[in-house]
């Protein structure tokens, strides 16, 4: 069913803003898809048709883009996307055991959703947090140094309607749809929450501080081009 007039008007205002960020409108497609995902929780046929309409593309063209990218859901899923990193490093550090344990605990396999509609379980690829392995991402927030136990606790809290605080993230965990809206370029006011850096991020800097190591001072100040002449 196509969007109601009211929804369409709201989407139009956001879509206008997204399109205005780019020199050419087609560049807005990925963000528009995040936007319709924020509206419906997945990219429905209507959502894709809306994007096509706004950018003057065919629905087939848009469908081709949607299927290329792993972050667009093509069917409804849970409020919380629980992604266990099972790329080599995390897998070996325990990611495989975490995924197996969650799958058993939740009674769903990867890419399936719990019957209460709360959790979609996924395996994800390296999420650039290897120094915190094994890593679990909930709606793309970091949960660092997980174990099968802590991961089961995490999904239990999610299913109980609680919002476990990410290791390096906001105070209030977003739902899947709220997260998609941030990705579409509409900040949720939570950027100031959470630490600047986690402990592993600071491992080298702390060591440098303890030992008084710094980068060398520039030799000749007032040498604008740094040419030395």
């Amino acid at each position, binding site marked *: 069913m196509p969007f109601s007039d009211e929804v369409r008007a709201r989407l139009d205002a956001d879509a206008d803003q997204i399109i205005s960020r*780019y*020199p*050419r409108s*087609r*560049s*807005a*497609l*990925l963000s528009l898809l*995040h936007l319709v995902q924020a509206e419906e929780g997945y990219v429905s046929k209507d959502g894709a048709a809306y994007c096509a309409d706004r*950018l003057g593309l065919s629905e087939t063209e848009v469908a*081709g883009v949607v299927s290329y*990218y792993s*972050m*667009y859901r093509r069917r409804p899923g849970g409020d919380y996307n629980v992604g266990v990193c099972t790329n*080599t*490093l995390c897998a*070996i*550090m325990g990611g*495989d*055991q975490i995924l197996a344990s969650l799958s058993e605990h939740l009674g769903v396999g990867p890419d399936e959703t719990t019957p209460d509609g709360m959790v979609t379980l996924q395996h994800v690829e*390296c999420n*650039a947090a*290897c*120094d*915190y*392995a*094994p890593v679990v991402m909930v709606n793309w*927030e*970091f949960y660092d140094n997980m174990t099968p136990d802590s991961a089961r606790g995490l999904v239990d809290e999610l299913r109980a309607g609680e919002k476990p605080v990410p290791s*390096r*993230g*906001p105070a209030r965990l977003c739902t899947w749809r709220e997260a998609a809206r*941030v*990705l579409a*370029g509409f*900040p949720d006011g939570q*950027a100031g929450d959470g630490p*600047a*850096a*986690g*402990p592993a*991020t*600071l*491992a*080298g*800097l*702390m*060591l*440098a*501080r303890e*030992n008084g*190591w*710094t*980068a*060398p001072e520039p*030799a*000749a100040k007032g040498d604008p*081009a*740094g*040419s030395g002449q």
Partner: protein
Amino acid sequence: MTATLTPVLTAHWDDPDAFRLDAYRRAGGYQALAKALATPPDDIIAMVKESGLRGRGGAGFPTGVKWGFIPQGDGKPHYLVVNADESEPGTCKDIPLMLATPHLLVEGAVIAAYAIRAEHAFIYVRGEVLHVVRRVQQAVAEAYQAGYLGRDILGSGYDLELTVHAGAGAYECGEETALLTSLEGYRGLPRLKPPFPAVAGLYACPTVVNNVESIASVPSIVANGGRWFAGLGTEKSKGYGIFSLSGHVTKPGQYEAPLGITLRELLDLAGGVRAGHRLKFWTPGGSSTPIFTDEHLDVPMDFESTAAAGSMLGTRALQIFDETTCVVRAVLRWNQFYEHESCGKCTPCREGTFWMTLLLDGLERGEGNEEDLEKLLDICDNMNGRVFCPLGDGAISPVVSSIKYFRDEFLEHHKRGGCPFDPAAATLFGDAQ
């Protein structure tokens, strides 16, 4: 000599407010921008050339030279695209950099855009890191408000728009031409080079694509001079860089040091391989760089020495694996990643990664033999030089290098009819028992 660390990019990460504009300014932030805007753009390019900075995204192309390729006075719009797609397995430096000091990236981007006379810059950040997206969005908004972006920046007459663009999940979109195709709103397929992005990049206009860490290095070069930067590191691999240690190491994390430091030195700083274990193999620069073993502890981590030893510096993503790790399992998993991420545009990569998964899977289960190893090497041989983009080259790296160093371990699986390793022993939590 014991190695020491040289925090520059990482120097303010322990300030809990590091990501805020006022904290960044207190630490001297945006002074380099003011200096740059008072300097002719070509002099900035010369300064970056003099620094010897080479791309931190893996390929190591000299940054100043790349900027110099942008034609001037051509009447076309120019673009800067910051590659913040960080997805190479093992690589985890750009994400913490943007989380802690997004303004360092924004300041670098404005300077770089000014140098190449770009009117619009983009930060293409992978979508799967929501809090990083928030921090970059906020930094850009703050920079607009403070007059570091937008019209007539700091009264210089220079105008720049900066758009934060969140990707949607595809490793291949980190490849620079695929990144541009994706930013244009298409499936992220790579393009033939030449033409290089400097000539025909975004919207077929002259475009510079640079890694986050490359761009974040620019403010310190402008502030301290190209010679200062060039005074660090080795003769051909100059400056400092972030080394990311992960896996079976006592203190995993980010260590910023001059290029040329060795793994032995880095392990020393990071408390060594986890207690009671010893190094088995490691990646010097992500999964696409051929693995090294304990024979390579003293290879200087610079572009030339890693290449001479049969691998690559890549992204300085040092994934450390100890003797509890099955190399066949590790390589199978990497290969499944490449198979999954292969964009399918060219046959050798699409088919090759598929068949390699089948063979590696059989080998891991103890059903593969020596002949399968030869088949694997044959497939790699067929892919080598025949793939359309470097993803395919990256896919063969773990396979060829692991067979080179651990052939017997592959065969041992066959002899035993299965994997001789206990996966629990390799985990973060399993070793305690």
